[in-house]
C-alpha cells in the first residue's frame, strides 16, 4: 500500500477493519460488564459496527440496498431498546439490583 494511493481515498477495507474493532470491543464489553444497562449499550455498539459494514459494502457495490438494511437494523434496535429498557425497569422493580450476577434464577 503506497501513500500515493491513499491520497485518492481511503480503502473500503479500512472501514471494515474499523467495524471489526468496534464489534470486538462491543463483544468484550458484553461479556465483561456487570451492569445490565451497560451490557445493553454494548449490544447497541455491536449493532452500530454491523451497520458500518453494511454502509461500506453499499458504497463498494454502488447500491442502495445496504442502506435499506441499515435502516431496518436501526428501527429494530429502537424497538429493542424500548422493550429491553422496560424489562430492565421491571427487573429493578422486582429485584432492586442492576447487577446481572444477582439475576440468575434460571441458572440455578
Amino acid at each position, binding site marked *: 500500500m503506497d501513500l500515493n494511493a491513499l491520497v485518492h*481515498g481511503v480503502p473500503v477495507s479500512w472501514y*471494515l477493519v474499523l467495524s471489526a474493532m468496534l464489534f470486538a470491543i462491543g463483544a468484550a464489553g458484553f461479556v465483561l460488564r*456487570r451492569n445490565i444497562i451497560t451490557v445493553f449499550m454494548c449490544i447497541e455498539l455491536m449493532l452500530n459496527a454491523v451497520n458500518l459494514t453494511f454502509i461500506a459494502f453499499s458504497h463498494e457495490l454502488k447500491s*442502495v440496498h445496504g442502506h435499506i438494511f441499515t435502516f431496518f437494523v436501526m428501527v429494530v434496535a429502537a424497538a429493542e431498546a424500548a422493550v429491553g429498557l422496560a424489562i430492565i425497569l421491571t427487573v429493578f422493580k422486582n429485584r432492586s439490583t442492576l447487577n446481572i450476577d444477582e439475576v440468575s434464577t434460571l441458572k440455578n
Partner: protein
Amino acid sequence: MEIFFFLLFAIVALACALNVVLQKHPISSALSLVGVMVSLAVLYLMLGAEFIAMAQVVVYAGAVMVLFIFVIMLLNAGAETRKGGSITAQVLGIPALLAFFAALVFLITTYYPGLSPVKFGDFTGGGAREIGMKLFSSYLLPFEVTSVLILIAIVGAIVLARKELD
C-alpha cells in the same frame, strides 16, 4: 483529505468505544456511546449515506440514547461493583478478544483484498429520495411488517413498565 477525516473520526469512535467498556459509571458509558454514534454518522456521510447519517444522529444519538439516560437517571444507577469474576475470564479475556479481532481482519483481508478506495462524492445514491423510492417499491412488505413490530414493541413496553393495578 479523506484520509485525515477518516483517521480523525475512526480514532474518536474507537476511543469512545473503549471508554464505553472501561468506564464504571453507566452515565459516562452512555455519553461515550453518543460520541461513537456521532463519529459513525460522519463516516456514513463520507461513504455517501446522507439519509442514514441523519437518521443515525436523530434516532440513535437522539432518541435511543435519551431513553438510555432517562432509565439510568430513573433507576439512579451508580458505579458498578466488580467482585468475583472467573479466573478463566481474567486470563483468557484479552487474548480471546485479540484472537477474535485478528480472525475478523484475516477474513476481511483474505476475501476482499482489492476493494476500491472511498472518495467523497463517488456514490450519491444514498439520499432520502433514492432510499424512499427503494423502500416503497422493493421493500414495501418488510417496511409494513416493521411498522407492526414497532406497534408490538410499544404495547410491550407499556405492559412491562406500567404500575401493577391492584
